[in-house]
């Protein structure tokens, strides 16, 4: 060192006291841009395909035709609905990863009502009964882990995860009972001739109803969490149960109430899937979206309006990924790589929102 004045790298990390929202959005926009550039480089390096071409194909996945656009909107809405269901539970620090099962049990309840009442009850009544059954079923799937958590402090993560398997196995069981034609192992389209229990379509847009329900739910959950007394209580319970007890909030009651809400919205989503768009039931109807929703909710920091953006991003990328796979003869994994790169940058940029890197100033 020869007794010279030592100098550091001159950089160190400092936690930000606060950050304006436009700066935070700016950082996220930069992250998105950088991720697209990295995607382009990776695409070129691995496949020698023109990055611009691949990007364009990703875009076409969602916007090439009106039909594609509406399918994308439908998937976005379903993902958004499940994410909205997760948000209050997560804000309460109740790690509900049972969205998948709560949706599936909603699907099962809807299918059961459509199959059993479709023949002898008027259409409107079948829809109403299905809706109630789906919401109640989803609610019960949320209620059971919540009661155990409130009474015996069981681990909700494991509990809700297990409930997923119960729901999926129940679906598998009933699919065999209801299979049609016999021996196909599938339920097929329920009430294909009578359309009993099918949700009406608005104009010629088959998926518009789901989009409207998702939009209304976004506003509802936003108000519920931000302005309602329930929303305030669950935030206090999430931050500190001791504080909640201190001000006389019944912690168990809040946990149960919030989880029933969370499960019920998932059940509603299941209803929308079976009665609204698919008109059938398979064990993969939820298709992992119950888990993807966890990611969507977290990335948006449980802000319902933020979730519109994050669920769009995820849906857009997965649609685009599929398109890339088929039109360039690449397999699906390649599109997963692109999706991962984008998510990596979007989550990684949160670091720069929380912290900033400072150069050491010269001492005077």
């Amino acid at each position, binding site marked *: 060192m020869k007794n010279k004045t030592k100098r550091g790298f001159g950089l160190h990390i400092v936690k930000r006291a606060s950050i304006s929202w436009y700066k935070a959005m700016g950082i996220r926009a930069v992250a998105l841009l950088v991720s697209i550039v990295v995607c382009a480089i990776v695409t070129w390096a691995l496949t020698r395909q023109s990055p611009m071409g691949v990007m364009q194909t990703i875009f076409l996945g969602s916007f090439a035709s009106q039909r594609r656009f509406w399918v994308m909107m439908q998937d976005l809405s379903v993902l958004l609905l499940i994410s909205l269901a997760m948000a209050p539970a997560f804000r309460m620090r109740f790690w509900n990863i049972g969205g998948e099962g709560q949706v599936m049990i909603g699907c099962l309840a809807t299918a059961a009502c459509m199959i059993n009442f479709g023949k002898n009850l008027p259409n409107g009544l079948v829809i109403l009964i299905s809706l109630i059954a789906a919401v109640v079923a989803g609610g019960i799937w949320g209620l059971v882990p919540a009661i155990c958590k409130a009474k015996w402090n069981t681990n909700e993560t494991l509990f809700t995860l297990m409930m997923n398997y119960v729901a999926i196995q129940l679906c598998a069981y009933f699919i065999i009972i209801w299979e049609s034609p016999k021996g196909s192992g599938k339920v097929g389209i329920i009430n294909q001739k009578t359309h009993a229990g099918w949700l009406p379509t608005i104009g010629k847009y088959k998926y518009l109803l789901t989009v409207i329900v998702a939009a209304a739910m976004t506003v509802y959950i936003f108000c519920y969490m931000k302005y309602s*007394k329930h929303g305030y209580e669950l935030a206090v319970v999430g931050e500190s149960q001791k504080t909640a007890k*201190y001000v006389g909030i019944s912690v168990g009651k809040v946990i149960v109430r919030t989880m029933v809400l969370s499960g019920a919205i998932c059940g509603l989503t299941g209803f929308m899937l079976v009665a609204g768009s698919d008109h059938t039931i398979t064990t993969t109807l939820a298709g992992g979206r119950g888990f993807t929703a966890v990611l969507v909710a977290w990335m948006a920091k449980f802000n319902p309006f933020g979730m519109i953006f994050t669920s769009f991003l995820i849906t857009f990328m997965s649609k685009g990924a599929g398109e890339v796979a088929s039109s360039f003869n690449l397999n699906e994994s390649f599109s997963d790589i692109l999706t991962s790169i984008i998510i990596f940058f979007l989550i990684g940029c949160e670091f720069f929102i929380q912290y900033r890197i400072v150069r050491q100033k010269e001492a*005077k």
Partner: protein
Amino acid sequence: MRGITKTFGKVVANDNVSIDIYKGEILSLLGENGSGKTTLMNMLSGIYYPDSGHIYINGKEELIHSPKDALALGIGMVHQHFKLVDVMTATENIVLGLKEGKKFDLKAAAKKIREICDKYGFDLDPEQKIYDMSVSEKQTVEIVKMLYRKADILILDEPTAVLTPQETEKLFDVLRNMKQDDKAIIIITHKLNEVLEISDYVDILNKGKFIGSLKTSDTNAQEMTDMMVGHAVKLNIDRPEPKNVKPKIEISGLNVIDEDGIPKLQDVSFSINSGEILGIAGISGSGQKELLESIAGLQKIQSGSIKYHDEKGKEYDLVGMNPEIIRKLGISLSFVPEDRLGMGLVGNMDLTGNMMLRSFRKGGGLFTNRKIPHDLADEVVKELAVDTPGLSTPVRRLSGGNVQKVLVGREIASNPSVLLTAYAVRGLDINSSYVIYDLMNKQKEKGVAVVYVGEDLDVLLQLADRILVLCGGKVSGIVDGKTATKNEVGLLMTSLGGKE
């Protein structure tokens, strides 16, 4: 340390501070809450990195990027919150993270630890598990850990805050031995009597700036206080004559057993009167927490009664009620708990959100009213001079004193008939403490029944009208605050009924 500056966001924690530390001396770093004492020392020990300035160790400039760098230079810091692994023994904790020798030899390490203990007069069993240890023993482990790593410069952050007077004496003896051994010791504190007792020099900080360095033998408490606070403060607490004293809460035969089956309160009987401050004294863990939580409806009670008398002469028994039921009965009971951020407030919520904790149920409808708590937050900030960037700042970002002001402000705002406070001035600087004493006196004059659980006997004797002394969960005695002596209360604290 020369010209050290450190900022957090817009807050300047240290502004061009320069201090010197010498071998074989004990230096006290004195300052109010948020004056930058801990920040300064965190930079010396590698937790933070200064924005600008230089640190010289033994005359050579050094860059300290991490606690590891600091230890390599012989700088060790014992933090306020201990960083120990509970399920490990003292020895295991001490050698944790060290890479010495080829073989992992716990026996040799234990032997070395014993040598260190003998040398400086520590009382420590290297084989004991941390979870079996008292706070003072844990602190000993932390100090020995630093000595084991050959620290020559030892920084202690408010070491006496968690100790009993006897334990403090013992710690000071050890520190004197270390001083004899040519170590440099820095104590961060705001207790003046300790500064006078132990240190050779005292450096005073105020609002991040270096104010001055005094030789302890040449100064006195008044001079230090003036420098620390920036203006002269009188060190007396008012005690207005109690008026209109009437029993508000009568407790009789109260028994509380905790979850592990250990009796926390045994046959406790006394009364809390309106228009008077009842002090509660006792060694920490004598049942103060359980007593207050019993009254507030947060504690499971085995037997006994807690009778509350309302203005109209009606009588309620609070046993078996929860805070929600108590509130619905129209009993306005305010409680400032010991654990401010863990119980009294929500750290991640802003000031308005925290004010809402008490009032969010008000009004019909499904939605909360944010206007009232917002106005209340504004009022509390103005009246109690809370130092905050704004009403939408999460309270955990505020310093200890300001957090307490927010909590006390909210509790008083509900016009309580009973005000329970636990260690209301713990960790607060002198200025904030006096604000709190004043608030309590004002409540007393309004006819509120005030309970003040405290640890500083001087304050208790100056502030309280009556002092209830707890000893091992039992009432050891109730004395008159005006006539009792410190010695008398001290005896009651350590032995039931004050008998030796």
